[in-house]
C-alpha cells in the first residue's frame, strides 16, 4: 500500500511541475505585461522602466525559477491590477469557492447516488426513465441558463431567496443547485452502470443464495464495488467545480477563485492567472491522488495492479 501511495505521489508532483511550466509560459503569451501595468498613455521609457523593475527583461527560465521559488513559499507576487499580494487574494477567495464546491458536490451526490442505485436495480423501469430524463436535461441545460431561471423563479418571481451575494447560507442555495446539477448526470449514470454490472456478478448471486437481506446485498456488496469509479469521478467533478465555477460565481456575484481567475485573464493580470491555475491544479491533483488512495483501500486489486 505504501509503495502504491509513494508511486501516486511522485506522479502527482510531476504533473504539478508540468502544469506550473505550462501556466507560466501560456500566460506570458497573452501580451506584454509591462505595457499592461503601465496603463493608458505610457511612454516607451516608462514601459522599459517597468520591464526592468519587474524583471521582465530577464530570460524566461530565470523568471520561472524565481516565480516557482516564491510559489513554494506561497508567495505569488503582487497583482498588477489590485496591487495586493496574490496569496492574500487567493486566501480571501478560496473559502467561498470551497464552500460552493462542497455544497454542490454534496447536492449532486445526494441525488445521484440514490437515483443511480434505484435505476441500476430496476433498469428500464419507469424510475430508470425518470432518472435518465434528469440526466439528459442536466447535461443539455447550460449552467448560465439554469442560473438565470433559478433567479427568475426563486428570487424574482417568489422572493424566496436573495438574488446574489455570499453573506448568508441562503445565498448559496441557487448557486449550489446550478453547479451541482451540472455534475449530477455523470455521477448518476456511472452509479447506475456500476450497479448493473456488479448485480450481474457471481458474488452477488452467492450473497443472495446465502439468504442475506436485499438491503445488505445492495449496500454492503453491490454499492461498495459499484462506487469505486464514482469516488474518482466525484473528486474530478469537485476539482472542476473549483476552477470551473466562474459562470455561477459571476452570475451570483459570489466572487470566489473561479471569478478571480476570469477577471485576471480579462485584465492580463499575470501573477493572479498563474497563481489561480497553479492552486486549482494543485487541488485537482490532490483530489485525484486522494481518490486513488481511497479506491485502493476499497478495492485491493488496484494497488496490486
Amino acid at each position: 500500500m505504501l509503495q502504491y501511495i509513494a508511486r501516486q505521489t511522485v506522479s502527482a508532483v510531476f504533473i504539478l511541475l508540468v502544469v506550473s511550466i505550462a501556466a507560466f509560459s501560456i500566460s506570458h503569451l497573452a501580451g506584454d505585461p509591462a505595457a499592461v501595468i503601465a496603463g493608458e498613455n505610457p511612454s516607451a521609457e516608462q514601459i522599459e522602466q517597468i520591464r526592468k523593475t519587474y524583471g521582465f527583461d530577464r530570460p524566461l527560465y530565470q523568471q520561472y525559477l524565481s516565480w516557482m521559488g516564491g510559489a513554494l513559499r506561497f508567495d505569488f507576487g503582487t497583482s498588477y491590477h489590485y496591487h495586493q499580494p496574490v496569496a492574500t487574494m487567493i486566501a480571501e477567495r478560496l473559502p467561498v469557492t470551497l464552500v460552493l464546491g462542497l455544497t454542490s458536490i454534496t447536492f449532486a451526490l445526494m441525488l445521484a447516488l440514490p437515483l443511480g442505485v434505484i435505476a441500476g436495480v430496476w433498469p428500464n423501469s419507469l424510475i430508470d426513465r425518470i432518472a435518465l430524463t434528469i440526466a439528459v436535461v442536466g447535461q443539455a441545460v447550460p449552467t448560465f441558463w439554469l442560473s438565470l431561471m433559478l433567479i427568475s423563479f426563486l428570487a424574482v418571481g417568489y422572493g424566496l431567496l436573495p438574488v446574489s451575494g455570499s453573506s448568508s447560507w441562503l445565498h448559496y442555495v441557487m448557486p449550489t443547485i446550478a453547479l451541482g446539477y451540472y455534475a449530477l448526470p455523470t455521477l448518476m449514470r456511472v452509479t447506475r452502470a456500476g450497479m448493473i454490472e456488479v448485480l450481474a456478478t457471481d458474488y452477488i448471486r452467492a450473497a443472495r443464495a446465502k439468504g442475506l437481506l436485499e438491503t445488505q446485498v445492495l449496500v454492503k456488496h453491490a454499492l461498495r464495488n459499484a462506487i469505486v469509479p464514482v469516488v474518482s469521478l466525484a473528486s474530478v467533478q469537485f476539482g472542476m467545480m473549483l476552477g470551473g465555477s466562474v459562470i455561477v460565481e459571476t452570475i451570483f456575484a459570489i466572487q470566489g477563485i473561479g471569478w478571480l481567475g476570469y477577471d485576471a485573464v480579462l485584465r492580463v493580470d499575470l501573477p493572479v492567472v498563474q497563481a489561480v491555475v497553479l492552486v486549482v491544479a494543485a487541488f485537482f491533483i490532490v483530489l485525484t491522488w486522494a481518490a486513488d488512495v481511497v479506491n485502493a483501500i476499497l478495492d485491493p486489486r488496484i494497488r496490486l495492479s
Partner: protein
Amino acid sequence: MAKHRKSRRKLFASWAATVASVAFLATPANASEADDTLRLAWGGGAGPLETANVYFTNSRTGIWLAMNVWDALVYRNPETMQYEPLLAEGWQQIDDLTLEFKLRQGVKFHNGEAFNANDVVATINWAVDPASGVLKARETAWIDRAEKVDDNTVRIISKKVFPVALDYLTTLPIYPDEYMAAAGRDGMAANPVGTGPYKVAKLDPTREYHLQVNPDYSWGSPKQTPKIGNVIIREIQDLQTQVAELVSGGIDLSADIQSDQAAQLKNMSGLTVTTGETMRISYLGLDATGRSGDKYLSNLNVRQAINLGFNREAYRKALFGDSARNIHVSCYPSQFGCDDTNAVRYEYDPEKAKKLLADAGFADGIELSLFTVPAVWVDPMVADLAKIGITLKVNAMPWGSLSPKITSGEVPILADNHGSYSINDASASIGYFFGGGPNDYSRDAEVTQWLAEAEATMDPEARKALYAKAIAKVTSQAYHVPMSSHVRHYVHSDKLAMKPSGDEILRLFEYSWSK
C-alpha cells in the same frame, strides 16, 4: 395506516415551516426608505474597484467613491460647470506658474484629524512623487510641488503654464497627512479616511462598501449635507444579475444598465429610468500614417469615405436615443475649446463615399481591420461600411490585451469611447487624440504644435483659436470618425429622487427619498 398519515402530516408541516422560514429570511431588502439605506450596485461589465485608496485606481467607480468620501480643494458644479471653493475657500493666480489657496478652517477628517495646510502639501507632494506609485500621473503631471505658506494657506506650483489647473485639482482628493503616515497605502485602502459627505463604515474589498453620513459635514460645502443616512454599495459584475436585483428590490439603483434593458425596465412598476447625456463620446481612430502596416488608411479618400459612409444619425438613435447627440469632432461640446463651427462635417452620403473609394482606385472594395473591446456597438458600423464596399474585420478583445496594441501602434482602426476623465477641457479630448501621445495615430506635426501651444497659454481666446485651427485640420483630414455622445441610464426605485450629471459621477449626497 394512521401512523403513516401522522408521519406524513408531520413531514409536510416541517417542509412548510422550512419554506416559510426561508421566505421570511429572504424577503428582498425592499425597506430601503424605511431604514434610510440606499442600496446600489456598480461594477457592471467593468468589474470591481481594485482598491479603495483612490489614488491607485483609474476606474470610474474610484472617481465615484472619491467624490463621496473625500473632498478636493476645488469643486466643479455639475450644472454650471463653474469652479466653486471646496476645501479651499478661495484662490488667486500669483503668477503664470503659481496658484495660492486659502483653506477652510474647522473642517475635520472622518477620524477626527483637523484639516490644514499640512494635509494639502503632504497629499500633493506625495501624489507627484514617482516613488509613491500613484496612478494619477495624468492628473498630476503638471504639478511641480506644493508649498505651505501658513497653516491655512498653500501654494501649488506648476512645472509649466497650465490653464486647466483648477479642473484637474477637482479630481485630487486631500488625504489626512498624519493618518497617511501611520496607515500607509494599504491602511488607507483598508480603512479610507477623508473629509467628504460620507464616511466608509465597513469595507469588504471588491465586494461591498458601507457608507454612513459624515455628521461633521456642516461647514458649508457646495456638495451639500447628504439627505440619505446610509449607503450600501455592492460590486455586481453581471448586468443580468443587477437587473434581477433591481426587479426583486435587492438594490435601489444601478447606473450600469444598457439602453435595451433600460427600455424594458422603464415600464416596470416601482422602477424609474432616468437618462442623462454624458461627456463620453464614441469614435473610430484611423491609422493615417500607416504605423500599423495598413496600406489603405493613409489615403485621404479612404478616410473621408469611411466618414461619409457611416450613418451616425441612425447609429445614435438606435444605440443611445434622443438624450444623446451626433458629434462631428472628437470632443464633448461643453468642453472648453470644443467648438465644431470650423469642423468639416461629413453627413451620411454612401454614394459620395463609393465615388471617393473609386477615385482612389478601390472601386472593388477593401478590407480593413478594426480593433475594439467586446461591444455590440460596432455592428452598425460594419453594416454601414459594407454598403460602400469596405469590409471590416472585427478583432474584439479585452482591454488588457488591446491597450498594449494601441500604444505600440498596431491598430489600423480603433473603435472606442472616451470620457475625457471628466475634465471639461478640449485638452482631455482633442489633446488626448491628436497631441502626439501613443494614442495619436494621425501624427500631424502641425496639429500637435497647435495643441501644445493651447496647453501653454493662459489666454482663453488664444486657446480657443488654437483649438479651432486644430479642429478644422483634423476634420478636413478625417483622422477620426466622430460618432455620438453617450448616455447613462440610472435605473432606480421610484422612491429615490436623483438627477444625472454630464460627468457621469454619482453624487450620492444629492440624492433623497421621494416625497
